[in-house]
Each structure stands twice: as structure tokens, then as C-alpha cells.
């Protein structure tokens, strides 16, 4: 027999599980996200914080004299999907990954020159800090 408390418990569980499925309108990046971009030859960094349910695509042209780029992931985006996509000077995709926390990674080798760095945010929550540095394979 289901007790009154049992019914209340099941109702609370149903509300808890159903609640997140309600769609929350997506936001845009604004001044309170403190977006900062450092875009130099061979070095790129993007930081943003206080991101709440943001859906947006950010694209940057970056000069990479290296064969590949070393990536420092220092982001923490616990909700939504936040992707980093990098293409080399001839348009080949050399990297695609979710933003991660505290992890060093690298792109595939590509053609040096004008690379494209794209951040794709889909209902993202959290903070972004990604650093790219030009790199060359050891001789």
C-alpha cells in the first residue's frame, strides 16, 4: 500500500525529474560575462565567466605560424554543450572537442597561416578559458 508520505515522495521525485525538461530561453553573452580576447600571432586566449544558458557562436581569425596548436583547457561548462572547433589555413578541421577543465591537448598538424577558431555555445553555463599557442613537432 502506498502511504501518503510515499505519494508525496513520488510527487516530489516527479517534479524534480520533470523540472529540468522544461525549456529555458537561451541568453546571449553580455557585459557581465567579462569576455576578454587576446589574439596575437602564435598566441590566442579567450576568457568569459558568469555564462548562464547562452547560445551563440564566436568565430575568430588567428595567425598560427606553427604546424599545430597546443591547447590549454581551463574552462568549466557544466551545463549545455560548448565546443571548440579549429580549422587550419586551408580550411581543414584540425580540432573539435567540448571545452574541458584543466587539460592540455593539441590540434592535429595543419597548414600554418590564417587559422579559424570557433566557439559554439549551446545553452552553455559556466566559464570559458582557452589558450592556444603555436607549436612545432620536435626535430
Amino acid at each position, binding site marked *: 500500500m502506498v502511504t501518503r508520505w510515499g505519494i508525496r515522495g513520488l510527487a516530489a521525485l516527479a517534479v524534480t525529474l520533470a523540472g529540468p525538461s522544461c525549456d529555458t530561453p537561451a541568453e546571449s553573452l553580455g557585459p557581465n560575462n567579462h569576455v576578454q580576447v587576446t589574439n596575437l600571432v602564435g598566441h590566442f586566449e579567450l576568457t568569459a565567466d558568469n555564462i548562464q544558458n547562452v547560445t551563440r557562436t564566436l568565430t575568430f581569425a588567428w595567425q598560427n605560424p606553427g604546424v599545430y596548436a597546443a591547447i590549454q583547457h581551463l574552462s568549466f561548462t557544466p*551545463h549545455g554543450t560548448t565546443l571548440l572547433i579549429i580549422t587550419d589555413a586551408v580550411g581543414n578541421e584540425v580540432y573539435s572537442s567540448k571545452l574541458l577543465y584543466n587539460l592540455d591537448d593539441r590540434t592535429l598538424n595543419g597548414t600554418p597561416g590564417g587559422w579559424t577558431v570557433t566557439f559554439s555555445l549551446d545553452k552553455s553555463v559556466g566559464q570559458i578559458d582557452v589558450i592556444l599557442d603555436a607549436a612545432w613537432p620536435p626535430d
Partner: protein
Amino acid sequence: MATAPAAAQAPAAADTIPPVHQRIAGPSPMAPALLPAGASAGAPLGTHSDTLPCLECNPPKRFWLGAADVMLAQFVPWAGNYFISKQAWAEIGPQTWRNNLTYPWQWDDNTLDINHFRHPVHGSMYFNAARTNGYSFWGSAAWPLAGSLMWELFWEAWAPSPNDLVNTSVGGVILGETLFRLSRLTLDNTATGGERVWREIGSALLNPISGFNRLVRGETGRVSANPPAWRPSAILGVLDLGYRQTTQSITNGVTESGSDQWNATFLLSYGDPTKDLSQTPFSYFAIRADLAGPSSGQVVNQFSARGSLAAWPLGESRRHQVAVSLEYDYFDNPAFQYAGQSVQVGLISSIGAPRKTWWGQTTFLFNGVILGSTKSDYYRTVEGRNYDYGPGLGTLLSGRLFYKTRLQGTVSYAGLWLHTIDGTQSAHYQDALLLEARYWASHTIGIGFGYTVYNRHSDYSSLPDVDQSSSFLRAFVSTAIPGLPH
């Protein structure tokens, strides 16, 4: 089990070791041979213990101590990650709680061992917060779900994960009851001195929540009778040590490889695999742990546990029973990768009886995988996930036959369909066939060999399909603990 791999490599001990019929006497669970003849299960030994009261036979329900245990089981890992390793996900507060209650749940990309081993182990602690505070199996079963919900929503900043909820809840129940019974088997309330200390330590290592509660309640040094439920009607462990050769081939010209390894397999059968099926949940369970090396991956290749939930005999003889069981599987070895929890229902039949010339058992089970993970050929994340999640359906057919407690043969087949709901859009079809033979030179020493072949066909929606075929060839020396039935 029921998963293809499970059936093949290790149909959860149940399919690979003999039925056990020696009754465990008294408080010395792992070494009944050392006990005086005639001691009955659960009864304390000797004249001294005959007069002892059984203080833990009908323990009261202690809800608040159980709730405190759950909080402790959550605070300790959170504090370690917040204060020591300073993980961003451990920085929780009103904003993260609001986020977790507002935004959608997400499947996570953690490694197989985090999702299918560590989470179920954590869930076993929630289960034992209730189980070791006077609650029955069924009364404890909801605690891992509640504990997991609390953890997912309030103790980490990550989006709550449905995979974590299922793995912690269902895996927590299976591992929780298994560890509860093994920790009780290790305890002896009639023991004193050094033996008592070591038993309490061993039990606490198996079940830390139990150890904490016994310490808090002053039970670790208190002499009393052992509850009869602490002792199974029978028990048998088998340790295989030997050599294993693995071969593997994957289509599309990707790879073909083989490896030679040492192999240690431990099988435990707790309870009577026929008579105890209809007793309280997990009165019968079987576990299998498989280790191998040298390995570039994990030394632990498998851990499986299958426990009885209920059974209904067909006819007076009880030779055939409709049985329901729960199974936990974790495989991560050179031949295949699979993990999951499943519910099984089917027919278990006995042939003959121990001490007869021929005796054995057959099993026909339908298998419902609540959530399984199997290797993906395409899904890869930097965090280490390389598998697809999904529910599944399958069958498990097995038979084992014994001749005069000397020869043992086992045949087992499992087939499984897993439908991916997160990962690479796909369906995985897996099956496994196990053939094993053993010769027991005595009641404690034997030799054997086994052959397992595993096949996987992964049907990807927008990528080339992949077929994998792997096999194990094992040769081993076995020791039975405490020994086969005479």
C-alpha cells in the same frame, strides 16, 4: 549477467562453479572446515556462545543514523575534491543548485570505470546506510536512488546525469547487498581478541558504512550470538590461476592481434543455487572477479555479481523454478568492453543431485539490460569515454554438468542487443559462447581449460559498420575453498 560478455567470460560464477551443498557452520564463514562438526548455521560455537543473546537478530530501524551515513558518504568524497584536489565541479552553492534544478540533465563522458564501477560502489554505500541500520533488502533499495539524486543535484556542479542515476541506483543495490552479506560473513560476534579485531577490520574494508555504524553503536567489541542470517546455507569459492591467450580481429582491416597473459579468476557461490533462489533476495548470489596481466590497461578485467530476487518452483519436486535475478557486470579487457546492470527472468532447472553420479543445472534466462555501455568504434572524448550507452535485451542459456565431483563441464551462450541512446547512433549485437572443462583431482585441487569466443556486430547509422571477433583460451589450476562436496 546476461550480457554476451558476461555469459561468455564469466557467467557470474553461477555457470562455472559447482553447486555447493555444505552448510556453513557457525561463525567462521570462510573456513568452515576448521569448525567443529555439528555446529549449525548461525549458532555460536561452544558452550559459552550457546548462552549468548543475539543482540543483532532483530535490529531496530535507525532512520536518522542512516540519513547521517548518506550525508557522510557524500561529504567525504566532496570534501576531498573540494579541499584537496580543488576540483571546479566541487564548488557548489545556491547558484549550482539552481542550475542543476533548472537546466536539462546530460549524459556524461566519464570513463567506464568511473561510471560503471565507482558510481555503483558509491551507491552501495547509500544502500548500506539503510541496510546496516535495520532495513530489509527492499526497504534499503530506494536509498541509492535518493542518495544519487541528492549527489547529482546538490553535491556537484556538473549537470545531473541520467547514467549516473541509473548506475548508482541499480548498481548500488546489487553491489550493496552483495557487500552487506560478505561483510556479515566476515564478522563473528562471538570472537574476541585479535581475531575479533581482524574480522571487524576485514568487514569494514568490505563495507565501510557498516564498519562506521558498528563503531558508533559499540558493536565492534560486544560479544553476542551471530544472527542466523549472517551465514549462508552453503558457500564455495574457487580460485583459478593460469595462462590466458587472447586473440582479436576487427573488420574493415583495422586490426588483428593477440596477447599472452597470466590470469587469476576468483569465483564465489554464496548460498544454495537451487534451494535458496526462493528465499530472501540475494540468499543466493555468485560473483566472479577476473585479473590478468601484464596489461597496458586495467589489471581487473572483470567483476560480475548476480543475485537471486525471487523464485517460484514448478511442481512438487522443485527441480524447475521460474527465477528472477539482478546482475551487475563490468568487463574491461583486451577482448571486449561492456558494463551494465540487468534484470533477468527465466527457468532454472536441476539435474540429479550432488553425490549422485551425474548432477548439474541448466539456466534459460531472458535478460533486460536497464542501462549498458559497450565499446564504440567511433565515439571518443578527451575525458576518456569510448563507449555507447543504451538499454538492451538478450538471452542467457547455460548448462553445467558434473560427474562424481570429478569432471565438470560448462556450456554457456549469451546474446545481447543494445540500442544506443547516447553516443554514436547505432545498435550493437553481441554474443558469446563459453566452453569450459575441469578435472578435480581432489576436493580442493583441480585443473581445467576454457574457451570463450565473443562476437560483436555494431550497426552504425551514418558510419561504416564494424564486426569484432575475440576469443580467450585459458588453462588453469584450481583450488576450491573450502572444498567440493564429498
